[in-house]
């Protein structure tokens, strides 16, 4: 059951050609290079991504949803290019579907992002705590920064696919629907705006769930906390903000993202809306990213010395 090992050296027969040999399969120590510690986070990032890719429901499902949204929105944009969007306007003038689809679709991409946070994001650290993964990571030469950075980077790559790819595709389609070259050139900033909005969303939906996953020792608890905070607390903030006309709605992640997108594209709702001013939206997003990463960092540092080794 252990590896076969033979220490027999073949004796060369008298004639010049030897017709048999036995090779020493015994253990050889590793004498090559070791990858530098600073590059370890990439290993964790790759692992996070490949774990998310397994199975149909972790990353593939929300990605599929995002794809569907892109296709539907793209079709709508194509079919109804000249009609006006009645609910929203831009700088006082009516907004055409073709211009409005890109910002409007962001609400839907945010939902796909939320689905991903439920299937993967909000259980990452809790799952490691539950299965003994912390012991696995920290008994090795992995530093807390490698762990947090690696997990975050892996999640960010996944959320970028979900929240940036779609909007960029729609922005490109908008450019493609331009009727004249000068219109095309005028519209180029749309690509940039779509990228920024998508990136903001990707950062938020990677960092904040990661932070929530650090709050519990069990996957289910972390997921419940995240879903509760996002759906319930978020809607409450948004509702109160709408009723009292205060920017409290910025604390609701999807509201913050949508507001940011709308402001980038100079779009307003006609009449009352839950949208919040740009500075509040940006502030909330940045705050959440910092909180999320901060919680992850704190939890991981804490666990290093207590979670490893010793009797349970």
């Amino acid at each position, binding site marked *: *059951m*252990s*590896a076969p*090992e033979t220490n027999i050296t073949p004796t060369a027969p008298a004639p010049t050609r030897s017709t048999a040999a036995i090779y020493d399969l*015994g*253990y050889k*120590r*590793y004498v*090559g*290079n*070791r*990858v*530098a*510690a600073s590059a*370890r986070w990439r*290993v*964790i990032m790759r*692992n996070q991504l490949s*774990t998310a890719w*397994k*199975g149909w429901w972790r990353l593939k499902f929300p990605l599929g949803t995002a794809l569907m949204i892109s296709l539907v929105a793209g079709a709508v944009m194509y079919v109804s290019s000249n009609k006006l969007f009645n609910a929203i306007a831009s700088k006082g003038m009516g907004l055409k579907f073709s211009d409005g689809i890109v910002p409007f679709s962001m609400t839907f991409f945010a939902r796909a992002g939320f689905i991903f946070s439920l299937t993967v994001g909000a259980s990452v650290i809790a*799952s*490691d705590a539950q*299965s*003994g*993964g912390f*012991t*696995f*990571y*920290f*008994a*090795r*030469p*992995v*530093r807390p920064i490698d762990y947090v950075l690696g997990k975050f980077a892996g999640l960010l790559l996944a959320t970028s696919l979900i929240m940036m790819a779609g909007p960029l595709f729609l922005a490109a389609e908008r450019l493609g629907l331009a009727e004249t070259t000068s219109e095309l050139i005028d519209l180029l900033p749309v690509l940039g705006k779509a990228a920024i909005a998508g990136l903001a969303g990707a950062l938020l939906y990677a960092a904040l769930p990661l932070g929530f996953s650090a709050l519990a020792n069990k996957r289910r608890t972390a997921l419940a906390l995240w879903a509760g905070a996002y759906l319930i607390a978020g809607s409450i903030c948004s509702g109160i903000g709408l009723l009292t006309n205060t920017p409290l709605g910025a604390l609701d992640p999807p509201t913050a993202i949508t507001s940011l997108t709308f402001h980038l594209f100079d779009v307003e709702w006609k009449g009352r809306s839950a949208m919040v001013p740009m500075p509040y939206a940006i502030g909330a997003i940045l705050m959440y990213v910092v909180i999320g990463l901060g919680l992850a960092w704190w939890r991981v540092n804490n666990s*290093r*010395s207590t979670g*490893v*080794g*010793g*009797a*349970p």
Partner: protein
Amino acid sequence: MALEPIIVVDNVRRHFGAIKALQGVTAEISGKIIGLLGPNGAGKSTLLKCLLGLVPFEGRATVLGMSAATDGAAIRVRVGYMPEQDLLLPNMSAVELCAYAAELSGLPRSEAVQRAHAALYYAGLEEKRYQPVDTYSTGQKQRVKLAQALVHDPEILFLDEPTNGLDPKARAEMLELISEMPGRRGCAIVLSTHLLGDVERVCDQAVIMHRGAVKFSGTVAELRQTRGGDSEYTVSVRDNAHDFAAALTQAGLANEVTSPVALRVTVDPAIGPRQLFALAAAAGAQLRSVEVQRDTVEAAFLRIIGAANDDATAQANQAKAGAA
């Protein structure tokens, strides 16, 4: 493997608030397979954590010449750890897990995959290695735990209760693997366990801890000193021990009957146990076993801890008397 110590601890102290987990641990550890023993709460796991560079402590500790206080990460490159509790990430196969472990320890990708397979062969996990670890039995999980500790080619392995949950056959196999490792893979092993029978079987050195301090550090042979200086023997006979006891007493040999077929005898050191056979032949008894009376590791352990407890009680009493 080494006559030089691989681990040196000098007055290491660690406390959480009022609890003193380690109170001045000093030892120089060398050898191939070292047993780390002690009651629960003696500080064994805390010591291992300190040596892996995971918790801060006062005092000095070096592992393979590197300081545990400052070079923890470098130590963990060269030390492998097989903990008592679970550490298997869900939804990964054994191969993926071991390759990931190797990569996290700095091995390049291709080397990591190769070594993962080699480590799993060594640990005895065959086709099951491609299935997710969640589906494994306890024995298989222990093997994966061992493989992930070895995969990055460590020079020392810390094993914490490696035979937990294994049935007798798997237990014997694990112990055999452990005893072969210094020769086969050139690594030393620190084995932390409550099963003193296992220690007797595989360890050549032992370190006994109690209440945060080291009470014994040396070879297992020293631990199991022969009592009565080589002239006390345990003997078992086929038939009636009392009859043989009478013959021994007549010959002037002190003896004591311990069971219907066994006795303890003190032989004349000048002649040795040979005389027992002559006496048995004369008395018509058949000897079935003759062995020098040696402390088992368990008996020695209890003696040392008992003495340590007595010391502690004496000190506490003194303190009370002093205060009164």
